[in-house]
């Protein structure tokens, strides 16, 4: 481990919501004329509210990142963790030079390659061979590098037979394999990866993770890795960086940061209620009024453990008029793996309040932390609103008279009928 290879100093990024341009030249000229020449108020963001609320309220500025400062040393593998919208991708994009920061500096040494998606620069019409070159160049490889690695890339992807077939005729698995194979043979000093490993089949994912691990261990390369999967991060990374709402919460050894992150987001939300429709989560068609998780205790003193059935009750306003609606319930473990996805039947709904409930039986989920998302679907096919992470909760362990205290494996712990008994006795000779 050696020198600092990336230095980030007071990095901030603001997005102007809707104020960068109105999207039409005549309006922009109009606006420029009004604000810059006549010194009047912006005609397109008229402050209908109290006149002195200041520009910060009218010009909605969204700070995707605020004042990040950290150093990354050569050869370190960093995991970047945080909730959705914490600014992880923005950070990667700034370091990759795709997006400009609003304030602050990133300095560094060496060549950077970033894999923010699988198959950047691939063209559907071209053959696999052409695409290896095209994508390689776009990712910053030189002609010599690609030629030297060509056979290795083809080997890794396992598509020799289809090298001269247009990639549009590939199966999606083949496509992903080829795309990753090109990316995996990049030789930058700093490699930036954004959850690209979340595609492909399990076996291929394993291969990819293995490749990343190889690269980081044997070749001393610096890697920045964003993932929702805590397992992948703790597996691959020795350092972690935790972002929350654009702010740096913690940096340090991966295991410590991951632990604190999981503890930190365990502010369990068992119910949400909104009386004011404007503030409620949703859009112009669907707005949620309430979501509640009600444990069906036998007596009130008992803990929320694996035996307790859980009822989810929710209400939402249907603002879209008469339509067939169904609701899907997605349950996730804190690692981000989906445990199940159950849809409700689709029923005709009128404009107004709609309610529903679903019960997860007791003795089904394993102990651990979970979060849940609700999706409202029209005609069982059109997604109207996805309410992500609306509830989160923790289920305690209960083992009865089992005298073993190790971590119980598995995502679920159902009690299926299970029988063992004495079949016959060994008779003493």
């Amino acid at each position: 481990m050696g020198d600092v290879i990336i230095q980030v100093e007071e990095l901030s990024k603001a997005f102007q919501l809707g104020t960068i341009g109105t999207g039409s030249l005549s309006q922009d000229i109009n606006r420029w004329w009004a604000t810059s020449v006549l010194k009047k108020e912006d005609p397109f963001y008229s402050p209908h509210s109290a006149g002195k609320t200041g520009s910060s309220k009218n010009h909605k500025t969204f700070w995707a990142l605020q004042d990040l400062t950290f150093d990354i040393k050569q050869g370190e593998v960093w995991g970047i963790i945080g909730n959705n919208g914490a600014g992880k991708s923005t950070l990667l994009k700034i370091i990759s030079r795709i997006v400009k920061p609003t304030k602050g500096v990133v300095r560094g040494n060496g060549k950077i390659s970033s894999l923010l998606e699988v198959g950047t620069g691939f063209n559907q019409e071209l053959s696999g061979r052409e695409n290896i070159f095209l994508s390689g160049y776009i990712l910053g490889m030189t002609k010599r590098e690609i030629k030297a690695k060509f056979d290795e890339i083809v080997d890794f992807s396992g598509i020799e037979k289809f090298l001269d077939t247009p990639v549009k005729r590939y199966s999606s698995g083949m496509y992903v394999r080829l795309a990753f194979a090109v990316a995996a043979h990049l030789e930058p000093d700093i490699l930036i990866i954004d959850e690209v490993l979340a595609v492909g089949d399990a076996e291929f994912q394993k291969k990819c993770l293995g490749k990343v691990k190889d690269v980081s261990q044997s070749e001393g390369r610096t890697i920045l890795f964003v993932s929702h999967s805590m397992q992948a991060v703790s597996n691959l990374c020795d350092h972690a960086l935790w972002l929350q709402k654009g702010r740096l919460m913690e940096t340090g050894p991966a295991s410590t940061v991951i632990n604190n992150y999981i503890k930190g987001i365990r502010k369990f939300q068992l119910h949400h209620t909104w009386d004011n429709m404007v503030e409620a989560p949703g859009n112009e068609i669907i707005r949620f009024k309430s979501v509640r998780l009600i444990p069906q205790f036998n007596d009130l003193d008992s803990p929320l453990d694996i035996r307790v059935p859980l009822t989810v009750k929710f209400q939402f306003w249907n603002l879209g008029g008469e339509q067939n609606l169904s609701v899907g319930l997605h349950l996730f473990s804190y690692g981000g793996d989906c445990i199940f996805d159950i849809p409700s039947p689709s029923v005709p709904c009128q404009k107004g309040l709609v309610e529903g409930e679903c019960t997860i039986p007791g003795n089904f989920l394993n102990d651990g932390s979970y979060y849940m998302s609700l999706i409202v679907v029209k005609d069982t096919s059109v997604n109207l609103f996805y309410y992500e992470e609306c509830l989160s909760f923790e289920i305690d362990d209960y083992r009865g008279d089992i005298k073993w205290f190790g971590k119980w494996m598995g995502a679920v712990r159902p009690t299926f009928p299970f029988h063992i008994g004495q079949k016959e006795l060994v008779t003493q000779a």
Partner: protein
Amino acid sequence: MINSTPKNDWEWEITAKTKWGMDFKELWYYRHLASSLVRKDFLLNYQQTILGPIWLLLQPLLTLLTYILVFNKLIGVSTGALPPVLFYLSGIVIWNFFHDTFIGTSFIFRENAQIFNKVYFPRLIIPFSQLGTQMFRFAIQFAMLAAMMAYYVIFKDYTLPFNYLTFTLPFVILLVGLTGLAMGLIFSVITAKYRDMVHLVSFGVRLLMFFTPVLYPVDYVPEKVRWIVQFNPLTSFFELFRLALLGEGTTTAWSLGYSVGLSLLLLGCSLLFFNKQGDKLIDVV
């Protein structure tokens, strides 16, 4: 390395500001990307087509036929001392080069937003490869023009000029391409910001054609309004192109100097503008 790098000695730095000026070393590093994109354009245009590259020749030929019918036979626009076929075809070929370069670069940010959002490379590579593609297409169409000229020389006793002006041809062609590139670069930024400008681009370039001596020689324009046509920097390039190639065309050193100066100035400004705006546009597109 034994000593740690001093604080101010970094290979690269990312800040809020974009520096004016260009990084030629980086552009050179990505040269293979540019050539690969030219290759891609070519493969894409002619894979799975019946006539393939013949389209490249068919389009100017059909245009030529229309121009001869409408402007020469019907309206009777003079083509000077030149045979109409050579006059129009030379105009069409060089105009196509300008037009396609301009249109091809005008929508770069809109069309490549997806890639620009996912990977970094010098954005100028895309317009440069576009210019390369168009040069290639021009070369093919020019070859057809040359064949047509050869036909006239052999069968119609037409004599071609060959003098010092012939050597200006490559420069004229390059300047026309660079003017198209420069205008395209500026409009690529504008169309990314303002969706309504798309109409202006396609409509404006059509109007521009009438202010460029494609269909008529500059001599044919009445003296009083000739300045309007000569205000267009392309005019003297087109005239010089015909003069050098076919021996007919009117241009003066002054107007040529004006055209060269203006198009190089335009090119310089557009490159800086594109570079400077390019980083910010990612937030918008």
